[in-house]
């Protein structure tokens, strides 16, 4: 090309610039797959549904009056949680202070090694 014909250099230069711009835009589009992966894995790794679920069960169980049944259900939750959800789950319910409109104050502990969730719930 060079020295054979030196006309239209600016057109060729602009052509190259546009091509390179398209190349970098293609890289951006290419990266969108990886961005989706990071988001999806973040959502999967965070045990949102597990916590909501076990929290519901714990709040319901905190109302059990019979102390034997309460101990049984506590052991159910911690044993099955450890065996199947790979999470350490425990809770303890104490009566709410006088004048409170709630029945119990419940300490909830959840830890699956990646996410730890601790809550003091009034229920």
């Amino acid at each position, binding site marked *: *090309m*060079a020295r054979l014909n*030196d006309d239209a*250099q600016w057109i*060729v*230069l602009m052509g*190259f610039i546009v091509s*390179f711009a398209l*190349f970098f835009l293609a890289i951006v589009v290419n990266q969108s*797959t*990886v961005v*989706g*992966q990071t*988001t*999806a*894995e973040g*959502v*999967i790794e965070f045990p949102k*549904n*597990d916590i909501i*679920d*076990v929290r*519901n*069960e714990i709040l*319901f*169980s905190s109302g*059990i009056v*019979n102390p034997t*049944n309460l101990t*049984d*259900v506590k*052991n*159910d*939750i911690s*044993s*099955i*949680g450890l*065996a*199947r*959800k790979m999470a350490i789950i425990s809770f303890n319910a104490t009566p709410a202070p006088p004048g409170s409109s709630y029945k119990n104050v419940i300490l909830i502990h959840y830890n699956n090694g990646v996410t730890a969730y601790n809550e003091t719930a009034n229920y």
Partner: protein
Amino acid sequence: MVNSDGQLFTIEGISAGLIMLLTAYIVVNTTSIYTPGDTHISDMQLEQLGSDALRLMNTPNTSATSAESSLQKIIINNDTAQFSNTFLWFCNSTTSGTNDNLQFTADLYYRDKNTNSVNKIHLTQTRNLIGGEHPVRVTEWVHLNSNGQVPVNNREQAVLVEVLLWRD
């Protein structure tokens, strides 16, 4: 010394360098082919769908304290056909057109009070797992009262329904 000579030499040099770099980049990249299916986006959506379906099944349709959810009734009555129907209805329904085609296998985990071991009861399945699927796992805690055929020990207990869910 600034003039506009030799522009095409410069351009050719730069473009040749970029072409070589690009070729090397593409060759190295072709050792792994990365498709959107590898990104777990569909897994995330499937897991949320399954969790929502199980939560719907575990919600009583009245606010009375004695009300039982359909999932509680299914476990107490060991009504596995009902589980299959309800779960697939929630998972496979679409707003229009043909239904989705999700498959599942469901187990129930409980704690035996006497041995303090966690045991499994197989509930039901639509298809056997043969290893080629790519299932996600969704679970739901279910509270069972003592007034029924509770899996073991006949006591008030918390059990875990575990469903492996995949798109066929």
